[in-house]
């Protein structure tokens, strides 16, 4: 492969060969993304400007009508608010409970690896099946939750049928399924905080609470940031749980943007509005990611 030719000429030839190899190695991956991810994105962009019900032969161009219709629909704003509630609560609770559990499991207790495994196990279960299982647990008469609430003398609300309780129910399932992921990441972060920092703090006379605030938390912040961004993106896209657990109902109490997209496309067969929703979703995801990149750059600059 490597020839002993003059450095300049050979270098550029070698360089070009490297380019080719680069293209060959990464090409299939990019080509598949081009066909199955970016092309659909563009197709949705096109659809967002036409009126089409997936059946009619013609797709008249309607300029921004679909956008106007989507954004002037009061239901859309309720759904956007639902999404905000769902995402913020789910991610917030996952991060908080995850942190508490990680701190607990970080103690040298026996069986902590087993506990970590149990906490993590829902993460790898299918979202659809988790939702099926929970729909049984939420059953107001025969379900597990009713049983548990019975111990404290309360009776179970109709979790999935009552608009006040359906969203909390969906959030509960989401947190249950994903908290193990946060635990594992936090644990890794905790392991990465140098012992010396704690020792130094102790020498300085810092109490346990001080050490938590001034050593543990700052040490965890990069990991926590990584977690919050990945969780936000994942949560924003989560579909299986809502689809199987509530179908976005009752009424639209648990309809999130991603479910709304599905609803417009596969239930209402409104390709144009579904295209608009696709653009909205992509825009939000893009914004979230750009914010992340900004932050990372800043952090690098700091260090």
């Amino acid at each position, binding site marked *: 492969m490597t020839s002993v030719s003059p450095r300049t000429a050979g270098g550029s030839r070698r360089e070009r060969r490297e380019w080719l190899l680069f293209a060959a190695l990464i090409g299939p991956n990019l080509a598949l993304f*081009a066909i199955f991810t970016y*092309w659909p994105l563009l*197709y949705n962009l096109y659809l967002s*400007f036409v009126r089409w019900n997936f059946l009619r*032969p013609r797709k008249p161009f309607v300029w921004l009508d679909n956008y106007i219709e989507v954004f002037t629909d009061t239901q859309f704003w309720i759904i956007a608010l639902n999404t905000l509630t769902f995402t913020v609560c789910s991610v917030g609770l996952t991060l908080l409970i995850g942190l508490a559990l990680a701190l607990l499991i970080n103690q040298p207790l026996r069986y902590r690896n087993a506990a970590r495994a149990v906490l993590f196990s829902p993460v790898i279960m299918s979202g659809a099946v988790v939702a099926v299982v929970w729909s049984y647990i939420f059953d107001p008469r025969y379900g597990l939750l009713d049983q548990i609430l019975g111990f404290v003398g309360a009776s179970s609300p109709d979790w*999935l049928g009552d*608009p006040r309780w359906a969203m909390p129910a969906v959030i509960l399932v989401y947190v249950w399924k994903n908290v193990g992921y946060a635990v594992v990441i936090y644990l890794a972060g905790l392991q990465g905080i140098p012992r010396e920092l704690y020792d130094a703090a102790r020498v300085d006379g810092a109490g346990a609470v001080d050490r938590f605030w001034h050593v543990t938390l700052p040490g965890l912040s990069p990991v926590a940031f990584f977690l919050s961004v990945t969780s936000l993106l994942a949560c924003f896209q989560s579909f299986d749980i809502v689809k199987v657990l509530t179908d976005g109902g009752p*009424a639209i109490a648990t309809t999130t943007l991603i479910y709304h997209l599905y609803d417009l496309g596969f239930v209402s067969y409104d390709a144009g509005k579904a295209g608009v929703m696709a653009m909205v979703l992509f825009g939000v995801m893009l914004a979230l990611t750009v914010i992340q990149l900004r932050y990372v750059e800043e952090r690098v600059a700091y260090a």
Partner: protein
Amino acid sequence: MENTTKLTRRQMLRGMIASGGVAILAACGAAPAAPAAPAATDAPAAAAPTSAPAVAAAPSATTITYWGSFSGGLGEAEAAMVKAFNESQSEVQVEYQFQGSYEETAQKFTAALQANTIPDVVLLSDVWWFSFYTAGAIAPLDDLASQVKLDFSDYEPVLLDEGVRQGKHYWVPFARSTPLFYYNKQIWQEAGLPDRSPDTWAEMADWATKLVKKDGDTISQAAFAHPNGASYIAWLFQGVVWQFNGQYSNPDFTMTMTDPNTLRAAQFYQDTVNKDKWAILSQDVNKDFTGGITASTMASTGGLAGIQKAAAFPVGVGFLPKADSFGCPTGGSGLAIPTSTPDDKKLAAMKYIAFATSTESAGVWARSTGYMPVRLSTKETPEMVTFFDENPNFKTVVDQLPLTRAQDAARVFVRNGDQIIGKGLERIIVNGESPDAVFADVNAELTKGAAPILEDLKAIEAGACAGLRRSGLRRRRRWRCR
């Protein structure tokens, strides 16, 4: 094969030229509407290892695929029907392919039309067949029927006529049902009520006080249960609207959701749950009924066999209660043949439809499920007469049929109309929003949804060919003008 590689390359190119602009996108979007080579229809079957038919097909046999929506007990009955057909002759072999709920089947069929990967027979529900008709996607069956000597005059007229447009049959009744009032005889007896369904909703409200059990503020046993939107509350409410002398829409597609009588019916529904608190909105009425959580409900006749099997108590059924008058819609699903199915397969498909809706088959199907016998002559067969004697509940099903009528356009002809009304009812019942406001929204949405349907109807039912010829679309949409 060569064709495939060519397409791959084309696809790749399209994907790569990310900045290719709308022209390319539009070209691609239009492509699926063009008729594909006849062989394309076979593509899905050829690409996949298919399960062997029950009977080894004769070399000359035509194999056709049939997309349906039945699983569980109904699925078994459906599979038995297909098996009986395959064994009864050697010319046609049917492969039954379950596609999920009615909605999922319609989704699949929509996608398949885009991609030209269609089945040869498809089961379409009451709210779906019309959309495919206006899109020109399902074929008129009269010529085919005469070729297989099928006589439409023996079908239940109420059911058959719904699938007729401009004198042609498009949608043959198969798993047709009506709502039925189900009640738990055990709870009825404990409450000291007569062993029958209530005559009127007023009587039901009166009885309800004896049926409801409360645990503090929550209802532990309801007198009645409504299904949710996904379980077709708009279908069951259709009958109730008529009972209050209201309607969803006029036959000319003018929406009448804000008609005072329609609103009165909605107010009644809301009150049963929110004010008088004897009914609940259930995620699964069949489950809650057989589980004893509700003492009664309205549900499809198609669930009768399943409910009787699952219930630990004697099940009573009756006609729907009246309000100002009686009202009960038909429902369920029928069979259709896609327009672009090749002619030989169309004929084969028609043979299956004729078999599945024959006097004998209709009886077998009705007895094992609770769906209507779609043939008039079925009721006179000795098997059916004996069966009615032994199962009076099934007799009730058939007795109610002559009192039913076809549903309003708003639910069955407007695309997604069922879900629009259903979601509206959920808002009224679950969120407690005022019927006036919600149904005004629903009315507007339905009106908007009806516009393209009317446009399509005008094109397909009046001077369709002339218009298409002028716009140069005729060649591409040739099948519309047959």
